[in-house]
């Protein structure tokens, strides 16, 4: 009897590929948290429990203020996650999100610093500028892949470094604030507005970037699942030969996919730096947000809504980690824990395959593995 119930439940899960995948993602998160907790126990057994609770629930600790900051931290990661996930669905691995983000950030800040005459439209134009810069940067890798068969991973890694050095050079030449050795601050008219969010989340840094992220998540969800364009992108991603057979223009789809992917990363860059108190610096470092996006795309199983949830979860951890300093933990412990969770999220593919294989044997369910998560 009990076996039948378990069997039934398994069957139901197995029947819904999405829920299997979600299950494995959650398993990855839990495993990551457990490892994080063990590390905390080793480092500081006394404070491990309250410290761990802080990581998980810190975003609630100061009410709406900390919840707002969770969203603020989450937004760029949601966007880079979407960027990577979108390319995944076309069978492309966009490791260049960081370069596209850098180009987007610089362009947005440049417009933010110089084009004050735009008035009320200033921030919109700045974001659009960032988007276009990211799109152009992404399209280079797409064009190289489509017409010269250069693997996108190779070209985007190189483009990342080009973007990084160009950023340094352009900051110093065009928008340098010598006194602080960083880029000048965007004018207040270029700051991403906060609208009523300031009243809901008083004291937090959250801005309407969160609405942009929600809007783009829904938009991508619709594109991928309801449109002819999404049908083509997924065909190309799942089986390029069949897409060719069906007369789809694989080259065009590859270029478009990388362009859109780059645009998303560009928007992330714009949103990150069109705020008060954060500045571009000529430091020759690749921006981590682009790489975090890869992990978030994995964790979110390349589905826009999954990526959104995973990105906000990341924001919560980051925010929780911020309060961790109240206890006797080195601030680096937060990075370690987040890194461990991200590391385990990469395992979600492995776990997913394992769970799927197990269920297939048990109930014979054919399980859809998200092609996007297949990193070769």
């Amino acid at each position, binding site marked *: 009897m009990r076996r039948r119930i378990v069997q039934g439940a398994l069957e139901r899960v197995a029947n819904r590929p999405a829920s299997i995948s979600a299950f494995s993602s959650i398993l990855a998160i839990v495993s990551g948290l457990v490892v994080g907790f063990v590390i905390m126990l080793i480092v500081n057994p006394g404070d491990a429990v309250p410290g761990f609770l802080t990581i998980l629930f810190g975003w609630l600790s100061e009410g709406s203020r900390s919840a707002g900051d969770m969203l603020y931290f989450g937004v760029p990661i949601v966007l880079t996650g979407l960027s990577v996930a979108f390319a995944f669905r076309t069978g492309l691995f966009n490791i260049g999100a960081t370069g596209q983000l850098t180009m987007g950030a610089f362009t947005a800040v440049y417009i933010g610093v110089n084009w004050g005459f735009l008035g009320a439209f200033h921030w919109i134009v700045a974001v659009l500028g960032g988007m276009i810069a990211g799109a152009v940067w992404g399209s280079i890798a797409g064009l190289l892949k489509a017409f010269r068969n250069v693997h996108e991973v190779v070209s985007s890694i190189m483009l990342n470094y080009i973007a990084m050095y160009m950023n340094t050079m352009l900051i110093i030449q065009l928008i340098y604030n010598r006194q602080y050795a960083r880029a000048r601050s965007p004018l207040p008219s270029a700051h991403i507005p906060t609208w009523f969010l300031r009243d809901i989340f008083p004291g937090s840094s959250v801005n309407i970037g969160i609405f942009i992220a929600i809007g783009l998540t829904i938009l991508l969800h619709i594109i991928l699942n309801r449109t002819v364009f999404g*049908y083509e992108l997924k065909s190309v991603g799942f089986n390029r030969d069949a897409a060719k*057979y069906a*007369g789809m223009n694989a080259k065009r789809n590859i270029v478009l996919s990388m362009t859109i992917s780059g645009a998303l990363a560009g928007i992330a860059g714009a949103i990150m730096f069109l705020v008060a108190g954060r500045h571009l610096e000529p430091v020759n470092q690749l921006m981590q947000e682009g790489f975090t996006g890869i992990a978030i795309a994995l964790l979110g199983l390349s589905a826009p809504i999954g990526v959104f949830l995973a990105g906000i979860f990341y924001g919560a951890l980051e925010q929780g980690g911020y309060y961790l300093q109240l206890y006797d933990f080195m601030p680096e412990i937060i990075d370690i824990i987040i890194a461990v969770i991200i590391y385990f999220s990469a395992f979600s593919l492995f776990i997913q395959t394992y769970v799927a294989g197990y269920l297939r044997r048990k109930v014979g369910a054919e399980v859809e593995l998200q092609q996007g998560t297949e990193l070769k």
Partner: protein
Amino acid sequence: MEYVIEMENITKEFPGIKANDQVDLKLKKGEIHALLGENGAGKSTLMSVLFGLYTPDAGTIKVHGKKVTIRNPNDANNLGIGMVHQHFKLVHNFTVTENIILGHEDTTKGFLRYDNAAAKIKNLSERYKLKVDPSAIIENISVGQQQRVEILKMLYRDAEILIFDEPTASLTPQEIEELMKILRNLAEEGKSIILITHKLTEIQQVADRCTILRKGKYIDTVEVSRTSNEELAEKMVGRKVVFDIEKAPAQPGETVLTVEDLCVRSQHSNTDLVRNVSFKVKRGEILCVAGIEGNGQSELIYGLVGLAPLSKGRILIHGNDLTQASTRDRSLSGISHIPEDRQRHGLVLDFSLEYNLILNSYFDTTYQRRGFLNFSAIRTHAESLIEQYDIRSSHGPLSLARSMSGGNQQKAILGREIDRGSELLVAVQPTRGLDVGAIEFIHKQIIAERDRGKAVLLVSLELDEVMGLSDRILVMYGGELVGEFDPETVTENELGLYMSGARKRGVA
């Protein structure tokens, strides 16, 4: 009589379908036992249960009279059960020897030792007459040889019970001949063999007994020598099957397709795999390109539909020059294409059946409006094709193509391409992997297309199909057309001579 395998009352249910419903299968020592059934009857599932890939919901398995539980392929290996899957599981850039010993390597202090292995392989291949070059790399040897490697792999692991799932589906007639000999040798040496095949002649040639399944249910086990092809087919389909293809004489009309001096270059080297091929296909006729696999037929079709670049020549449909046109434009100008490799070109395996059924027409305003997919139209279309072409699967339109049985995948593609009503139907090996009932049905459909005034270009490796279906035959050898024949007057022998390159003559 002692049985080596006794499967009793095996039931395996997938969500939405009972793939095996109380099936019995008893295998005697040293016999070749055929397993016959329609597409989707549950043959592969039953063998996957025996090989430990699926756990049955009910039923018992006995090996040498002892009840066993087979949890995974390792258990099966330990019980002496080996399986050759329809799609081989070999590492392409490894040598034959490396593939055979993979997972069963001999080592000393962590270093691989090949000497014992090489001796054992040599021994096995002599004993069972399985000729292969042990140092050849897999990707450089033919499909028939790869299959021998798979067989050696089983023997190397001391398998006594050998399962073959549709081993002849991708072999040339010559290779099939060879395989039949190998099977007989194996049986004589005391191995017990289960053979899944849709080809009744193969069963008549080698099998001792035959178990028949229909829609997941056990129907009967018969002595092959006392059963005719017609009886086998009737048991399997549940009605009489017409083997002879009935068709009225062709009434060719105006020319639909003109191919002039076509040359198609190899993707890998600088040679032409198709050389100066010219022919015409008219309305109301079935033109067949016959030949032994690998003589340029595949490349000819790729060149024709736009999947491979032409190095020379012209292609015209109703006089319109399509030489420079894209695959999409050729398709829209009236070419339907049933591709040779259904899993590579024909289907997106991770899409649902209904998505696959619009693969060549998703952009049509029937299935989309302003770029948004019209889900209800897609569903209606799928339901009508599923009904018309009897495409069986577990979840109807929503079944993942990957979960469908091989024959039903093929029916889905056939339905999709015939339904488009194009002027020219290009069908490459349209009945590969289909059961006799389905073959009869597909042949009828192709003839009906012809009688509706469509032009049909058929590529087939099966002589029966070539002789029965076509109105005109072109033989291709070494990338060139070497003869044109009327199926009414030519003999299979004569065709064979041209196909093997022993004779040739000019083609008008």
